[in-house]
């Protein structure tokens, strides 16, 4: 049976894993290769490395971190942050990533999705969407934001997810900005609406705080995978323990431990 995936996300700055609340009060959480291996040993089904600053000066450092992490990691490995063109993606693949995640660059140039998919395959292209409830609308729709959530686009999240899939995206990484960093639970309605709109897998992100939240987003939100960062780093939730709770609740998971 196909299992629901638990994905550990490592936020990176200057070659180190960092953790803060909404990109503030960053503190060092370790070496990316070591963190990735530890998560994989603990049962993470996939690892995402996200360059949260993505300045040009950081590119080389980031690629070195990707290379070091990829060397002994044998689960799917996604890298995101600062990928603006095909060449950026190619450099990340060359360093050992299996998939890349693109966000702002895909919104401003949707054809970029197809260009990367055309060369590396759709399975290698994750389109990341940051969305939040559109306060101007009464229908409860969600709006897409770019540039780390700072810039509003006026675009509907469900429509954009559909278009991204049509352009050749292999998966959607959907972050609820309303829930991100709150540990108050995933936005199940947002996730379900996108999951029902596209045939490609949807990874839910933003709001993970307890095992119950994961159960809800898989059962109620119809997510194919769920991603979390902070709760895994500092041991609030242990992935092996989380998987036991998911299994007991009837959610199929890979039993890695």
């Amino acid at each position, binding site marked *: 049976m*196909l*299992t629901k995936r638990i994905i550990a996300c490592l936020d990176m700055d200057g070659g180190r894993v960092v953790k803060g609340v909404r990109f503030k009060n960053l503190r060092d959480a370790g070496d990316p290769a070591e963190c990735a291996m530890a998560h994989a040993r603990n049962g993470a*089904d996939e690892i995402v490395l996200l360059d949260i600053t993505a300045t040009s000066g950081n590119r080389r450092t980031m690629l070195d971190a990707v290379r070091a992490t990829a060397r002994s990691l*044998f689960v799917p490995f996604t890298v995101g942050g600062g990928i603006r063109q095909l060449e950026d993606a190619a450099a990340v693949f060359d360093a050992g990533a299996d998939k890349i995640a693109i966000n702002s660059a895909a919104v401003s140039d949707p054809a970029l999705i197809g260009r990367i998919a055309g060369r590396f395959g759709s*399975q290698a292209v994750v389109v990341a969407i940051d969305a939040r409830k559109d306060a101007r609308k009464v229908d409860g729709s969600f709006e897409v934001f770019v540039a780390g959530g700072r810039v509003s686009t006026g675009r509907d999240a469900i429509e954009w997810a559909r278009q991204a899939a049509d352009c050749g995206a292999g998966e959607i990484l959907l972050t609820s900005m309303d829930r991100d960093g709150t540990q108050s639970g995933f936005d199940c309605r947002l996730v379900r609406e996108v999951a029902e709109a596209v*045939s490609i*897998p949807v990874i839910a992100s933003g709001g993970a705080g307890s095992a119950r939240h994961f159960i809800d987003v898989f059962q109620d939100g119809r997510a194919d995978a769920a991603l979390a960062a902070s709760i895994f780093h500092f041991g609030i939730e242990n992935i092996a323990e989380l998987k036991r709770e998911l299994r007991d609740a009837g959610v199929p998971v890979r039993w*890695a431990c």
Partner: protein
Amino acid sequence: MIAIVDYGACNLNSVKKAFDYLGAKVVVTDQPAALGAADKIVVPGVGHFSALQALDRAGLREPLLQGASGGKPFLGICLGMQWLFEGSEEEIGMAGAGIFSGTCRRFPATVKSPHVGWNSLAVQENTKLLRGIPQESHVYYTHSFHAPVIPAATATSEYGLQFAAAVERDNVFGVQFHPEKSGEIGLSILKNFCEV
């Protein structure tokens, strides 16, 4: 020496890296002569069935078939396994290697496609490639088309229907999943291939 066939259609890093990790000697090549010199051959692949046309363009089809029929251990991964069949609905009219009978088909409309993620294996007895792999082991998949469950299937998975997860006949092996991305289980399978 294991030759990993590079036909320009996909990222081969992860496959090479896994063999490197296991201490195997590997060469990534698009040269027919290098296939003749290798002890074992791996055809990786992901993406569209038509990408396999590059094998023909590079003049690799004949050396690959010779290697397989000449008894060299041969492993097709994902699209590389589908190539071992007669063809695929994904690119009608394009011939596969035809080493295994049957055609690769799309998943039924009752399930989302592509099939992405970790799925469990039902492993048959007497397989060299999957020796020591426990029942219900999880492996990582990413594909939209699947190969039929033929007598040579040594493992199956279920996604809307039963499909061939692995096939094996004598020296020729194929896996639909990605052993190089399937953690310890995947590494064990590649190690078995190194030791065949």
